């Protein structure tokens, strides 16, 4: 028996290969590059790989645009238009996420535990922290996950699909557990993610087995042919396809496979949450689109009921539960669940407009998500304690600007909604950017989110799924409530410590005599905002002491760059969406 090496089109694989190769090099760098030089080396490598990958996608573009793309590795991977769009989007968004991941506070502190292997609260951890150790394994892990994400939507057979899913998932499980603050919460989240992810993978691989049993092949194209021939094994086909879809729906966080999302989004280091929320969703939806459009169109009548149920449940549950959240990260998690539902309506449309709509929506959503989580990462709690009472050996202490008798320490992220009150006045630009992302999530015109929503809902209506579009529009309207609530909170509600000051000193400068009315209305708002308790899994959330205030931590500025770019893209895609829509719709055709 002889083995014939398949003819490999290396060029077509270059976007993925560059990222994966850099990931492997990064692992080697961890071993051989001296301590001090690791961060710059890893950053350069990661940054270079992502830029290289974007360039590779651009180089492949015109070829794919003219001939529709081709399969490589004997059909295991399909390099066609949607693949390139998704790979490009993933690379660009990872680049933006990388800026947030790589950012450090002015005191040189990043988002990750000094040594993830240390027991939380142990002396060893404290030692690592005081030595200022940082972990640069984050970057190769990020690259490997990105590599998996870029393969996932390009897969041409079920086994590659499974492998890609695992390649992207395993690094994410690790990254989830590496938060610097609230480490138990982070580790708990990682374990949950891992267990449930394994469960979902098991379902998926079971589905793969059944589909193989039905069709005798793992190739999408051949399964699609087999789907067309009715046979006595229809049960295998149906159950197999449902299990396969469930595996993918788990990754996008669709109801009822969403339960991991809030806990994991809350526990993971915030920059990773942003990366995960944006890029994983893109990759998984890319694969879902391909599977649904190329493998199962013959099963549309049977699977529609599944996807309709899931889409409606996802939109409604994501919106309703988000309404009662008091933690900003959990709120964004539920909002991302609702968005998964909106995207699903576009997937169900099953036509070319649907592909373009879904791809555009994912891009718009991803940009706003990374920006929003970048801001969450910068908004911190700050404790103000008299100098004498401060604990020693605290390297996070910032120079105090008021004088020597107080000492301010920047703590973890201020994730409770009440802590965001008044941010619009203390940090107007940052709050403005956050408001922009929220408006984009809410789908207000002139933001990318509006065009995305408009595109998926109109695709759904074209595809005859108008009830879905209706549910989508209604949930969007309801969702706008909690997005706008945050904007109102940031701009119009005084921070708790401010409210007391304002009450005591009536406004004296030019203008009207101070109106007495605001006090009552404002008071209730504050009461409402601070009333909400801790969160479900908040096993280790310290209750905020009365001396903590909210502050925007000064950082090296990388996150600010990412936030700025995200805000710009959100506006540009909202006001001038045509070039990008054209770009996508030019190539939005799957290889059969």
């Amino acid at each position, binding site marked *: 028996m002889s083995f014939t090496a398949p003819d490999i089109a290396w060029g077509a694989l270059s976007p993925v290969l560059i990222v994966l190769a850099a990931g492997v090099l990064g692992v080697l760098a961890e071993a051989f590059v001296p301590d001090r030089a690791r961060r710059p080396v890893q950053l350069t490598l990661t940054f270079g790989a992502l830029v290289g990958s974007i360039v590779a996608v651009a180089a492949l573009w015109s070829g794919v645009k003219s001939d529709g793309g081709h399969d490589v590795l004997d059909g295991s991977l399909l390099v066609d238009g949607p693949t390139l769009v998704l790979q490009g989007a993933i690379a660009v968004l990872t680049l933006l996420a990388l800026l947030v991941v790589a950012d450090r506070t002015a005191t040189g502190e990043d988002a990750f535990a000094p040594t993830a292997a240390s027991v939380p609260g142990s002396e060893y951890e404290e030692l690592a922290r005081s030595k200022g150790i940082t972990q640069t394994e984050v970057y190769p892990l990020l690259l490997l996950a990105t590599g998996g994400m870029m393969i996932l939507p390009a897969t041409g057979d079920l086994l590659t699909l499974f492998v890609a899913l695992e390649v992207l998932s395993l690094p994410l499980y690790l990254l989830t557990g590496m938060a610097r603050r609230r480490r138990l919460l982070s580790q708990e989240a990682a374990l949950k993610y891992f267990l449930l992810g394994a469960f979902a993978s098991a379902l998926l691989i079971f589905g793969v087995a059944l589909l193989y049993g039905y069709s005798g092949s793992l190739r999408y194209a051949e399964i699609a042919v087999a789907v067309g021939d009715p046979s006595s094994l229809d049960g295998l086909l149906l159950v197999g396809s449902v299990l396969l879809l469930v595996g993918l729906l788990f990754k996008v966080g669709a109801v009822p496979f969403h339960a991991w999302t809030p806990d994991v989004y809350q526990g993971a280091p915030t920059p990773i949450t942003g990366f995960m929320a944006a890029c994983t969703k893109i990759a998984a939806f890319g694969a879902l689109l391909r599977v649904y459009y190329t493998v199962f169109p013959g099963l549309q009548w049977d699977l529609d009921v599944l996807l309709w149920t899931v889409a409606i449940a996802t939109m409604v549950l994501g919106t309703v539960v988000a*309404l009662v959240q*008091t933690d900003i990260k959990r709120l964004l998690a539920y909002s991302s669940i609702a968005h998964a539902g909106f995207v699903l309506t576009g997937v169900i449309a099953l036509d070319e407009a649907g592909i373009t709509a879904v791809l555009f929506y994912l891009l718009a959503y991803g940009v706003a998500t990374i920006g929003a989580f970048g801001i969450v990462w910068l908004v911190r709690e700050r404790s103000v304690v008299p100098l004498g009472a401060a604990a020693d050996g605290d390297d996070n202490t910032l120079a105090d600007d008021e004088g020597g008798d107080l000492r301010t320490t920047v703590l973890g992220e201020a994730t409770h909604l009440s802590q965001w009150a008044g941010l619009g006045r203390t940090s107007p630009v940052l709050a403005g950017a956050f408001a922009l992302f929220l408006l984009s999530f809410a789908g207000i015109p002139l933001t990318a989110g509006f065009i995305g929503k408009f595109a998926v809902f109109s695709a759904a209506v074209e595809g005859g799924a108008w009830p879905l579009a209706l549910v989508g529009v209604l949930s969007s309207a309801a969702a706008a409530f909690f997005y706008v609530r945050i904007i109102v909170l940031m701009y119009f509600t005084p921070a708790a410590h401010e409210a007391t000051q304002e009450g005591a000193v009536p406004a004296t400068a030019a203008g009207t005599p101070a109106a007495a009315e605001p006090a009552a209305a404002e008071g209730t708002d504050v009461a409402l905002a601070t*009333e909400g308790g*801790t969160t479900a899994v908040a096993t280790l959330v310290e209750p905020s002491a009365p001396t903590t205030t909210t502050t925007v931590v000064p950082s090296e500025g990388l996150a600010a760059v990412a936030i700025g770019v995200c805000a710009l893209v959100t506006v540009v895609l909202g006001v001038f969406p045509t070039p990008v829509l054209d770009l996508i719709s030019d190539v939005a055709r799957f290889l059969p």
Partner: protein
Amino acid sequence: MHTLTSVVDGLVPAATLATDTLSPAGETVSGGIFSVAPLLVGLPLASAAILLLLGRRADTWGHWLGVLASAGAFVVGLLTFLRILDRPADERVLDVHLGTWIDAGAFHLDAGMRLDPLSLTFVLLVTFVGTLIHVYSVAYMEHDADRRRFFAYLNLFVAAMLVLVLANSFLLLFVGWEGVGLASYLLIGFWNHHMPYAVAAKKAFVANRVGDLGLLIAMGLMFAHFGALDFATVLDDPAAHASEGTLTAIGLMLLLAACGKSAQFPLQSWLGDAMAGPTPVSALIHAATMVTAGVYLIVRSGAVFEAAPDAQLVVVIIGAITLLFGAIVGCAKDDIKKALAASTMSQIGYMVLAAGLGPVGYAFAIFHLVTHGFFKAGMFLGAGSVMHGMDDQVDMRRFGGLARYMKITWITFMMGWLAILGIPPFAGFFSKDKIIEAAFIPTDGAQWRAWVFGTVALLGAGITAFYMSRLFFMTFEGERRWTTKRDGSEQHPHESPALMTWPMIILAVGSVGLGLVLSLGGRFVGWLEPVTGHAEHGEPVLPEWLLIALTLAVVVVGLVVAWRRYAVSTVPVVPPLGTALTRAARVDLYQDAVNDAVLVEPGQHLTRSLVYADHAVVDGGVKGLAHSTVGLGSLLRRAQTGYVRTYAATMLGGLVVLLVVVLVVQS
């Protein structure tokens, strides 16, 4: 900016259209002066960007750049106006194509500017009054450390307002609509370190969001029925594309939008509170420009309203209610700016009423809008000048006898006062009396409408005369009722610097002569005809001379009553208890209480129950306590316990349910 670069090559010569009636489909123009029209928006926008980007470096000269940008926009507007004036009347509706804006499958929209008599009227008003107010602000804001930022916002506002009036589609109009909202919110809350101002900004924010929702729904309906949002498609015989019911819905939603922006009943409560902002802002935004955007929207969408008589009737009713409402509230306010705000509300009520009368009223609505822009802005600037001289005192019971100390302010204010009263030959006489007269013309032969709305408009004129005279006498006449300054020293009222008085003088000249100049030979009405269409002038139910005499009579009655109560007799420093109506008017006729009861309370109950559910559900999960919550709450708690086993069970359960559903459906 691909829009700006494509301006020049985007211009194509096009056929001339006959525009003797309503002419939504404009002619596309090429070359010449019209290619600089985008500068109208570009100049103030660029200036705002420069001022914001340069930051403190521009502090020394930034305000002058702001003035220059606004003046530049005025010059461009004037040149465009003159060019349009050169053309025959039926070729005065032009579309300047700027390029494709959005091309998303079924939805295609070009960005472009609509240059026609209506938009140019607004352009001239906005840039002229705007420039004067810029100049005034240079002196008024002199001691504010953030004066540069203030001018950046003012420029931003002017740019957004020009986008609003120059847009050739509802979506682009919406861009301007949101832009003026944003700019006004930034300006009202400019001194946002003080709580009441931030609260005022919040109120304006919420009322405007309700209005925006109306505009969004209207656009959704338009897109569903016309497949487009540009004026040319939507306003060209709308009755051919949509049923009357649909058009009524669109009209009512547009009216809701107008109510939010123009402070009309029932969304009017924010305007009084918005007076917390700097006074030049009140003059520009809350008198001359932004608050009139609602009137613009209704007149611009005239074709829709004409095809939906029911919506039109609602417009008239809303206008009538607001004009009385504002007038009554104005009688009881002691804060000079809040009294002026109530007056603005009432005067815009007149305009909305006129706009609801159909083609007969459009021109008069816009005419009154222009004259009102002059005299009301002038009076706001006068109020600012008084506050400037009186250490930011706003309580009119603490003014009195200021005429001797602030001669220019007194005289210019008097011109505005006489204009709003409608004393001939001041501007208001020509514009307001025309509206009253038009209100007395029966629509569709319905006599009752003429009597009801005519009487309301007439009555409003009398009340207006009373409260404006009250304001004028309490401020400038009678004996002094001054308090000490905030630092305890004596008040020394003084005239404001020339930079502040000159804009007031120019606006006063407009208050005196503009009405006469524009109405000679029906000039203004004729100028607007290409947009509003030629209206057959029906006969009012009473003869014209009698109406004028009646109006003057009620005005004089109002004036005399005010004279006796506020100029001749002593004005109490402490507000007397007053009648039930006065007390109600002082608190805006219980508008806030109604809002609280109707909107805020249920909202708070909802949030409270949500927070309660959150408390019970989420905390319950943490503590593992068996809170017996019901319905959705318990469902959520069970779903999100934090236990992996529960999550996995949920997934498995979900999978089984889905499988069963799929299999059942298949068989």
